């Protein structure tokens, strides 16, 4: 089920709130939340619940075993069992075909294997399971007494299938008891509506524009305008799609008493690639920092080791997004940029005017989207070099112009809103005016989103495939 579906909005959400608030005890509310979360996850592909259950319970028992021994070697062995078990699920479903086919190609074999059907959200919940076992191992949080409580942490529907990746230590207390104030509930729903509007009114519209360009292009060479327009629209679609989901997840969590950390902070307003990754998909960055980069030694073992650690982390970051070489390249592309910024350009960049800093960032970011978008390497190369005017069909083409006419104003609006314009304006308003406008805007966005949702058919969430 997706948040922007009518099933969720008209049936699931009202039913959840009725059931959730009809009882006051934490036990009742956790029970309702767990049952509804499993329904949410199982809606569409109920059998995949089993994969999540097996992985969850395996790690529950590993964590219990961790609390029963102080012997460090045994504890490491138990941790390894839990981690390998969870990752093996992820590997089997997401990466086995990719590695087998890559290996076959390398060996010159004609044999190939088909991709497995991917359990929805497996990349997200696997990481959450890992944070539980590792946090218990590190004694940052106590092991849970009940496997159902762990299942609630893993399956809690707001963040289950597209993040943000919630670290166990951050919500351990909230799993026990949550206090929900009316103002927080209101703020949470407002945040949810904001996310819904971003998804329906911006991400979907950008997606429809890209779909139109792709259909019109029919696999032929792009024009220069088409290449840049595709790139801009895709970057906006992916940003709004994903940040909208995070907004909805954070908002829904808030209405249920959970406090999730922010996942996006206006990433397109960054002045460097380094800053961008502090603002984009923050929960994933935090996960790789806390559970991969720092355990590898971080930046405390000399420059060479730091660079090596960064390469490992960014190759994994790329792979996390998809089992294809373009994602690995995409991760390594950012790795190179981060290394360059860190060791070569740090002083130079900070001395430049902010506009030039932003241009550096935005152009470098732009070049990453074709790598991310095209899973086929030759199409990726074609899309990438087209940005430089190589192999293009011309400066413009009717398809790109048609998209520009239909969606140009929309895309421009979406781009402006991706910068911190609203907070800038909002800060300059009186509190009373801000609240009133905020409420009016929320109600208008709610109505418009609902109407768009019903009136349009294009509604996929990109990040589910990860």
């Amino acid at each position, binding site marked *: *089920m997706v948040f922007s579906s*009518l*099933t969720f*909005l*008209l*049936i699931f*959400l*009202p039913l959840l*709130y009725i059931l959730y608030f009809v009882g006051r005890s934490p036990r009742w509310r956790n029970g309702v939340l767990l049952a509804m979360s499993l329904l949410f996850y199982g*809606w*569409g592909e*109920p*059998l995949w619940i089993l994969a999540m259950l097996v992985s969850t319970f395996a790690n529950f028992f590993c964590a219990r075993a961790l609390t029963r021994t102080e012997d460090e070697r045994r504890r490491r062995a138990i941790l390894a069992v839990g981690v390998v078990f969870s990752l093996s699920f992820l590997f089997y479903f997401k990466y086995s075909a990719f590695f087998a086919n890559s290996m076959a190609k390398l060996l010159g074999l004609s044999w190939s294997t088909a991709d497995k059907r991917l359990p929805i959200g497996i990349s997200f919940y696997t990481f959450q399971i890992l944070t539980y076992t590792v946090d218990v191992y590190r004694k940052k949080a106590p092991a849970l007494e009940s496997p159902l409580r762990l299942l609630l942490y893993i399956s809690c529907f707001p963040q289950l299938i597209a993040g943000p990746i919630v670290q166990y230590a951050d919500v351990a207390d909230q799993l026990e008891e949550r206090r929900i104030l*009316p*103002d927080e*509930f*209101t703020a949470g*729903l*407002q945040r949810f509506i904001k996310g819904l509007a971003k998804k329906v009114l911006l991400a979907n*519209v950008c997606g*429809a*524009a890209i*779909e*139109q360009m792709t*259909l*019109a*292009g*029919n696999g*032929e060479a792009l024009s220069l305008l088409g290449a840049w327009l595709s790139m801009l629209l895709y970057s906006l679609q992916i940003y709004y799609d994903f940040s909208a989901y995070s907004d909805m997840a954070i908002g829904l969590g808030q209405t249920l008493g959970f406090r999730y950390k922010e996942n996006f902070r206006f990433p397109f307003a960054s002045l460097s690639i380094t800053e961008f990754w502090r603002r984009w998909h923050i929960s994933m960055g935090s996960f790789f920092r806390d559970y991969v980069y720092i355990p590898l030694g971080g930046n405390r073992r000399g420059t060479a080791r730091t660079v090596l650690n960064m390469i490992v982390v960014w190759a994994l970051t790329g792979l996390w997004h998809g089992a294809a070489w373009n994602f690995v390249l995409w991760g390594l592309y950012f790795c190179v940029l981060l290394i360059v910024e860190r060791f070569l350009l740090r002083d130079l960049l900070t001395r430049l005017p902010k506009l030039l800093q932003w241009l550096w960032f935005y152009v470098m970011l732009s070049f990453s989207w074709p790598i991310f978008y095209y899973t086929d390497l030759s199409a990726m190369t074609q899309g990438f070099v087209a940005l430089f005017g190589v192999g293009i*069909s*011309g400066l413009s*083409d*009717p*398809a*790109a*112009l*048609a*998209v520009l*006419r*239909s*969606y*140009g*104003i*929309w895309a421009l*609006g979406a781009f402006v809103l991706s910068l911190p314009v609203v907070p800038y304006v909002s800060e300059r308003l009186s509190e*009373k005016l801000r*609240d009133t406008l905020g*409420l009016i805007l*929320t*109600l208008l966005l*709610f109505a*418009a989103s*609902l*109407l*768009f*949702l*019903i*009136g*349009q*058919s294009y509604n996929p969430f990109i990040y589910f495939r990860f």
Partner: protein
Amino acid sequence: MKKRFSFVCIYLCLLTLLLCGAAELLAPDKGERLSESENRMLAAFPALSVKSVADGSFMSGFETYLSDAFPFRDGAAAFTDAVTDLVRIPDDGPATGEMEDALWDDLEEQEAAFQQLLEEGRAAEEAQSGPGPETSAEDEALPVAPADVEDVHIWLVRADGEREVIFTYPADFMVSLSEILNRYRAKLPEDGRLYFLSPQVADVANNIIGKTKYVGWGTDLVDVLQPLVDDGVVIVDDLAILDPYLNDAPSPLYPTKDYHWHAIAASITADALISSQGLAPADYDQYRYWLSFRHEAKDYSTEQLAGMSYNRETIEIMSAISPAESYFLNNITERKRGVFTMYEGGYVGFLGGHKGPWRLIEGGFHTGRNALVMGDCFTIPFIPYMAPYYDQIISTDVRDNFYSVYLAGANISDYIAHYGVDDIYMMWTNNYLFANGTISSRMSAYLDMSY
């Protein structure tokens, strides 16, 4: 106070959702219904079973049901369109250079000129003889069908093999139609053929394409109509031709948002007709390779043409085109060269669109045969695939917005005789022909009307 007001407003949002959800679930009619505005069956409440839940088909069906059953669905769609149109930059042509500008200026002139001609034509008709030969199904009593003539059905085939009838057309109408077809056939030489086909629109096809509930479609049109018509009239089962390709075509047969079909669907249909005549159809890809065309020394690639859009979705009706010349034929301007592309209210046609009211397409291939193609907009992408097999193709669309008796200047028989038509292709989508008696009345009236 302020916070309480916010709280109330937000709760009202939730209450709205709850009421909408409850209204949909408690609605008494959960069966399939025909949406006349979309010309498709709206989804019924899905059957609940262990299997349908396990394979997810219940959930996807439920989602579709909720969307289709939403009470203000048409209003929501209108709102969406209005908002997107509001931020749309007005379309004044592709503007990709001077040649394009010239082409589109010319096109706009032609469009304006035709509209003016049409108005003048209608005024002249009324001045001469009052309202034209407009008749409707209600005005004319249909012949009563013999008892052995059945109604015609169009159905969707469910995954379990069951047929689900979506349209039924009465036997009486089929008898009437067969008489019209026989009259047209009589105008052709002995070895001539009249091919009649009735393609389905995208909304019907899109019940099957990419879906699991329905796996195919069918009709008994041929069984019912073929026995009623004379030799030389061939009733074509267009649904059977396209059925194998619905989910297995090189590119989509139909758009998802638009009503028409893509060039490839027209191509597959044309190929089947060509093959049935013992001729070798040209490969679809070959067309794309052959065919770009020139206008005032400027090449237009098929991709450029294909890029034009309607309703925010690309319609690939123009990606195939033969090296043809197109002319408008009418009583005033007589024969006037037409531009190949016609952008009419957002709908991209080619070979002059429907204007004229008659159009002449010279294929450039000397086969010694000529054809008449009569039908609605589905003929536009169809004609190019027939062009290599005829010296000349004349084409007309007798719908109200595209035809004027005055501008035609002669009846259809005269056109058939003047251009030495050997074969006729009649192609009307079912909702124009079967669901609306006006078209058959006009086909009948315009054939031999006196001038």
